[in-house]
């Protein structure tokens, strides 16, 4: 089973993006950073007790699913959309949704367009190898509009083409659009159109059939969400662990109960994960939140208590 493999190996192999700003990319020293990467780190901390015991395998749109299917990676955290076909036909398990995204459009302000419905006849830049091209086709068809797709291989290429004016609109997940916009010298000249034309639940996925490993990934993720719900964060985790009276938090942090053992891990798995990368909110803020150049609002990804969709099932 994968869990045993990971433990035996002493290293978690995590499939990530070859480079997507804010979500996963190596920095000048070769250290991977980003929202998706933090998930890998949390997992490593939970399973192996050390957040740095991760090997990152950059995967492209074409190679990602094969890498997971062939066992080259243990888990794929690479902003992949959860779809029926991928889940059922390609035989993967999407264990959770760590980012609710949707496909949007970015256009230059001076184009004078304020709605995606006005894009009839436009040239649209779009990444290949994703679900976006299907959504795009469907959207234009549904609105009885025509368009010219300009397919691009990766985000940086898409941004380049868009900036150069090779397309009128750039479409990808709204988070990606925001990241791109943030890095532009004249961010104020670009707007993201209000229409979100698709649901893009992004999340980590594992191979079908290895339910134990799937559970580990799923609950590690929910531990991070739950931590936010209960106000547990990197800074106060030790203090909370020793003082909390909330039985659920106790169970979460391994003070009480044996949730960890049930997963095949130890008591403090979730505590380690939270201590290593912080809770969901912290991860969000550190990598893509409004404090970063990317500046994404929480939106759908706020906790359910704050009008979002992030919701951790009970730890019991």
């Amino acid at each position, binding site marked *: 089973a994968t869990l045993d493999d990971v433990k035996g190996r002493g290293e978690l192999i995590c499939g990530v993006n070859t480079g997507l700003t804010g979500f996963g990319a190596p920095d000048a020293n070769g250290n991977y950073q980003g929202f998706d990467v933090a998930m890998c780190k949390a997992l490593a901390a939970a399973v192996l007790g050390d957040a740095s015991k991760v090997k990152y395998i950059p995967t492209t749109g074409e190679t990602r699913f094969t890498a997971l299917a062939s066992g*080259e990676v243990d888990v794929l955290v690479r902003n992949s959309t959860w779809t029926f076909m991928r889940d059922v036909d390609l035989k993967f398990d999407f264990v959770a949704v760590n980012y609710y995204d949707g496909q949007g459009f970015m256009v230059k302000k001076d184009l004078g367009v304020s709605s995606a419905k006005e894009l009839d006849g436009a040239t649209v830049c779009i990444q290949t190898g994703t679900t976006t091209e299907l959504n795009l086709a469907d959207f234009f068809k549904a609105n009885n509009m025509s368009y010219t797709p300009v397919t691009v291989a990766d985000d940086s290429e898409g941004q380049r083409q868009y900036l150069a004016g090779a397309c009128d609109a750039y479409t990808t997940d709204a988070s990606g659009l925001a990241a791109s916009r943030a890095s532009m010298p004249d961010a104020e000249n670009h707007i993201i159109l209000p229409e979100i034309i698709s649901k893009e639940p992004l999340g980590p996925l594992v191979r079908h059939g290895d339910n134990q490993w799937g559970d580990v990934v799923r609950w590690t993720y929910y531990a991070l969400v739950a931590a936010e719900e209960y106000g547990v964060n990197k800074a106060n985790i030790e203090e909370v662990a020793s003082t909390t009276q909330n039985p659920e938090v106790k169970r979460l942090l391994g003070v009480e109960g044996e949730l960890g053992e049930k997963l095949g891990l130890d008591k403090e798995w979730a505590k380690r994960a939270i201590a290593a990368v912080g809770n969901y909110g912290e991860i969000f803020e550190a990598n893509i939140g409004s404090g970063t150049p990317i500046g994404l609002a929480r939106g759908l990804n706020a906790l359910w208590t704050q009008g979002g969709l992030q919701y951790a099932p009970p730890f019991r």
Partner: protein
Amino acid sequence: MQEQLVFVRNQMLPPEAPPPGQKGIARWMRENLFSGPMNSALTLLGLLAVVWLALHVLPWLMHSVWNANSLNECRQIIQDRWGEGATGACWAMVRERWHQYLYGFYPQDMYWRPNLALLLLFAALAPVLFSSLPRKMLWITALYPATGFWLLWGGTIWAPVVAMMGFVVLWLVFTVLQPRLGVPVSAGIGVVAAAVWWMVLQAPMTDALQSLAPLRIRAVDSRDFGGFLLSFVIGVTAISASLPMGILLALGRKSDMLLVRTLSVGFIEFIRGVPLITLLFTASLLLQYFLPPETNFDIILRVIILVTFFAAAYIAEVIRGGLAALPRGQYEAADALGLDYWQAQRLIIMPQALKISIPGIVSSFIGLFKDTTLVAFVGLNDPLKGITQIVRADINWKGIYWEPYIFAGALFFLICFGMSRYSMWLERKLKTDHR
């Protein structure tokens, strides 16, 4: 008539200088630049092209910035220095990231290891390329695969040592059996023995030796290889591993056994008939279907294997050319002396054919080296696209286009141009050598 016929010159005329218009810069210009209306037009066109290019590229190059932390900072500096609307090159990116272009994510404190490996590579190549060096140096060449591997990947020294011992086993088995069973059979048994060694004894042996004498350096994961280091590793490994395979394929293609010939031709034509990129995708997408379930190894290794196949098909054709250039007499003389097929190949034919093929092998290497950039498409960090993509994913450098391409392109040019000059020199030298 007879009188006028006879002529004897008593005084020899000294040589004279050519008439005016036959020398000097004016003549050179007239002959080389303006020797006709057509030529003059061409010259002017050429000049125009050069000037146009200079006008467009020079200002950009002149406005270079070397010190900045992000693209925006670069743009700011350029505007401050050369005024609103000026454009310029932002080499600060190269300054910050050059090590990734050269070494990928290889740990920075261990750059000496790939450097040393490269130096040793030259030492190992020297005796092959310069026949004047002492033959003893060939030992460096023979040991290089192990040392090079160990330096680059690190880990215990015993792993490569034990692996090399597998070759020793192969050789021992071969030499013991060969007089009785002939070359093909004993080579086959040798390979089987070596395979057994590697599969059964390699791991325990390594561990035992390691515990006896713990000699190890820090291990580096092949995922950390990138940039030109990756290109060199793939290129050099594939070319050297493809040589034996290419020789066998070339011999197979020349064989008079129909089946052997068909298989060789089939392999060569198949590999040469499909684009390298599909082979790379095979490495990353299809190999998992063809290998036994649960086998799983490094994508770099898989890529190297497929690239080796690719190179082998081309090397086989190069060597076939070398074989064709050998006169028939060499085969006949070897036969007449009573040498058998393999002895003749090893002692007479191959040494000569390989020598003739060296320029072809070098140009295959250049081609392959350039093609290693394609590994970007299976998610490896090649120096051109892979690393550039990573750099551009950094929010600081998002939006930089020309500089990374120019930098990587210039390095490629230097390396490839150097090698192609070298191979031309070799070709000339080989032509004047023997025969």
